[in-house]
């Protein structure tokens, strides 16, 4: 069984079919990242885009490096570019919140020990509320918020994936958290 670096070398030597081994090996990883960051309808296309980008910049991969990390970074940046384009073209759906979402939020912040997330309906409302709130943020804030607060990555890990400085990631993370808090605060009934 060849290592990632050996397969990369084979592809660079012209054996393009060898790239399929890398795809089989990392398909799940790429799809897992993409599924969380882009809408359902765009998952297949963005995952394809990530692999194409990886293929095109294969000569930039340093053989001493970690291919998994390198590919993850390309995938996250592909998702980021998707949102930048979507926001620029105003393609981000801005569905309005209903009473159900407000009620869900109030139940979450109430002192009840049992969270309302157990039912399917509550799960749906949580997903819709999350999508609504993320849709109100910029592409940068959205990605940082997802990576830091929802996935629990460190500033260093997020900066490696996004290719930004740690300071930039930390500042963005702080600001995006405040923005989310303000947004949620605004949805609670007066």
């Amino acid at each position: 069984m060849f290592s990632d670096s050996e397969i990369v070398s084979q592809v660079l030597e012209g054996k393009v079919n060898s790239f399929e081994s890398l795809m089989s090996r990392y398909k799940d990883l790429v799809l897992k990242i993409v599924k969380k960051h882009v809408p359902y309808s765009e998952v297949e296309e963005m995952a394809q885009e990530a692999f194409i980008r990886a293929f095109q910049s294969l000569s930039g991969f340093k053989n001493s490096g970690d291919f998994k990390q390198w590919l993850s970074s390309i995938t996250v940046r592909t998702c980021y570019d998707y949102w930048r384009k979507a926001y620029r073209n105003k393609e981000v759906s801005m569905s309005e919140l209903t009473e159900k979402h407000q009620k869900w939020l109030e139940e979450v912040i109430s002192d009840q020990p049992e969270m309302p997330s157990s039912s399917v309906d509550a799960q749906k409302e949580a997903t819709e509320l999350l999508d609504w709130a993320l849709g109100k943020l910029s592409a940068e804030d959205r990605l940082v918020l997802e990576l830091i607060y929802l996935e629990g990555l460190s500033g260093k890990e997020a900066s490696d994936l996004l290719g930004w400085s740690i300071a930039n990631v930390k500042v963005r993370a702080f600001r995006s958290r405040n923005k989310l808090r303000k947004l949620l605060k605004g949805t609670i009934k007066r």
Partner: protein
Amino acid sequence: MKSINENQFTKIIKTLTTAYYEKEKVEVGEMWQTRVMGHILSMDPCYTKAGYFELFQQFVWKLTPVAFVLIGLLGLALFKMDFYSDYEFTKSFVSNSADLVTLAMYSGS
């Protein structure tokens, strides 16, 4: 407007995180990998395309400090030559300072 304290906000984030991870359960079509591979095989060889790009990138970044030094030197030379020569050149022909002022008025400088 009700406010959300830190504990409540942490609780919301925790609940939204569960919803966030639910997105992972989406399935993709079985033929997806074959389609992507087909697309890749139909593309130009990557190593040539990327190779040129890499070479270009390396070259550009290596030349950046030299470019900055050249821009600085050129700017300095232009500043010295242009401003100095116009005024000094005219002054060497016109000895009277009143004439120099008149000349400046007509030349628009």
